[in-house]
């Protein structure tokens, strides 16, 4: 029994079958990588988890509850956080404010008319946000506008925002795309640390095999909307179907 169970999910856009009978089982406390060539349906699948898309048929169960037909903010409140492919941060706010917002969301829920207290007076939330910034070693940048951060730092900030909610499941959509090798290694280290310290379940979509094989405890391979293999990393490399569909016989 996994924390996230996906059964027979189908999704088509017009004539295009983006997902066909996808079954996926993510176990609690593991890092599960979802890989596949471009257009395999990885992001579509992730969108079905967070409420951006609703599957045509099938079920998505998180922690024993169905996620279908629930709004994104409600799904988030049940404990699913997502890091996007292009960082979605509050670019006109400071780094510190960016992390404060998820901390408030965690404490106060989806809506509170908290108009007469002061942000600076909310000591518990502030301390939590500051600790989070220290954890991702961004505390020296807390007064910078988020838009002025480097690309790598923006991703790091987005991860900090998601982590400060103590999610049960963290979804990462290509967390290292477009990063330099050094930044990629930093990110791998950061994710490994988080996993070790907080035991957060993670689902990672990734193209970079270096990242996948350094982090993942289990790998699902998606091709043309179907899961063609799901196995431990060491078995995936030699899997004939994977070699054929994904690595294109190059190995």
């Amino acid at each position, binding site marked *: 029994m996994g924390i996230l169970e996906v059964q027979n999910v189908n999704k088509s856009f017009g004539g295009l079958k983006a997902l066909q009978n996808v079954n996926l089982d993510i176990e609690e406390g593991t890092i599960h990588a979802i890989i596949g060539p471009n257009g395999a349906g990885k992001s579509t699948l992730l969108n079905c988890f967070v409420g951006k898309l609703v599957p045509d048929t099938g079920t998505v169960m998180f922690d024993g509850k169905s996620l279908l037909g629930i709004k994104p903010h409600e799904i988030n409140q049940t404990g699913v956080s997502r890091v996007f492919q292009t960082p979605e941060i509050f670019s006109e706010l400071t780094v510190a404010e960016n992390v404060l917002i998820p901390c408030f969301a965690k404490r106060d829920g989806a809506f509170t008319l908290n108009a007469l207290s002061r942000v*600076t007076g909310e000591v518990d939330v502030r301390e939590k946000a500051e600790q989070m910034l220290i954890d991702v070693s961004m505390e020296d940048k807390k*007064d910078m506008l988020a838009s002025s951060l480097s690309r790598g730092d923006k991703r790091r900030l987005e991860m900090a925002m998601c982590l400060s909610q103590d999610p049960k499941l963290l979804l990462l959509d290509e967390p290292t795309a477009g990063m330099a090798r050094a930044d990629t290694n930093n990110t791998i280290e950061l994710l490994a640390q988080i996993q070790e310290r907080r035991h957060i379940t993670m689902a990672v979509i990734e193209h970079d095999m270096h990242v996948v094989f350094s982090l993942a405890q289990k790998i699902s391979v998606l091709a043309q909307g179907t899961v063609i293999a799901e196995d431990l990393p060491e078995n995936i490399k030699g899997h004939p179907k994977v070699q054929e569909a994904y690595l294109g016989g190059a190995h």
Partner: protein
Amino acid sequence: MKHLSKTDKSTFILVAILALLAPFILNPFPEGSAMAQFNAGYPDLMQRFAIFGILAIGFNILFGLTGYLSFGHAAFLGVGSYSAVWMFKLLSMNIVPAIILSVIVAGVFSLLIGFICLRRSGIYFSILTLMFAQMSYSLAYSVLTPLTNGETGLQVYNDDPQYLMGPNSSEVTNLFGLEMRSTFTLDVGPWAFQFNLGYYVCALFLLLAFYIAIRIFRSPFGLMLRAIKTNQTRLNYTGLNSRPYTLAAFVISGMYAGLAGGLMASMDPLAGAERMYWTASGEIVLMTILGGVGTLLGPVLGAGFIKYFENIFSKINDTVLHTWFSILPDGLENAIVWVLHFFVGKGWHLTLGLLFMMIVIFLPGGLMEGGQKIMNKIRGKKKNDKDGGAKAAATPAE
């Protein structure tokens, strides 16, 4: 006051001093001098400064903080005015029930309109609000005549019931007997400073409105509104529901507009449909942009700026111009007056338009940005500009 940070406290005290001393500050030129017509220290105009200041502060909570450009805010102003005049007609000329009702009615009205309009954002939201405001205007002008008295405008008549009116009650708008029009004139040499009760009532409401706005800006709620402005997608995926936040901001700013409308009727117990016309809504947008969108003080400055132009520049006519340039040779005098003629009097919109263009192009942050630039220059010369640039970029204009 103890809930404000140091800078906010000093801003608030500055505004309080300016508001309370306005009769002096706005009246710098002696009576009877050639410059006397630039004086703005008369009750009628000072009241309008304060009332439109309240309106702009409220509008800024929606537009500046949340990023939703409402193009129909004058509707709430009009609704507030009508409610206030109805209170005068039904109860008495006391402004307290009138103002309370105008805020409540505007709040309910904005809840209804906001509930529908906030389903969309961006330009579609603006168009929806514009449409609602125009609809309200047309209704007030025609179909709802029993409620609004159509094109004549709603006013108090002798045969109105006025149930709370005693035999000694004042016949003009008052605060428990203190008449809004009562004015004390202080003559100091050639100056005549006018202290009007109505203005001070408006000014106190302005300070209250400003104080609440500061608290909202600095609260977690205000932080969420700013977050909505910068990235609503992220907000939704962070477990926050943006709909109630935007609706709350819309209702709060609608209530501010209702308060302004109620005060307007309290100063002069009349309400006409033209108060809801789309140009009135546009004027609110102009005020906020001119002063500085999303800043605390900007909207008040913008409101004062526009109202000053509307009332002062429009009074300058050709005769006045001729007296100014009478020392010049006749031909030159006539030529200058002919050119300036287009910019003053009825042509004041042209001057305002040019100024607006220049501010938007050179100072996109409005008058506040201009003020900040000047302050930075002064400070920069003192401190040799060590870290001024970096800090100015990090802290959004306040």
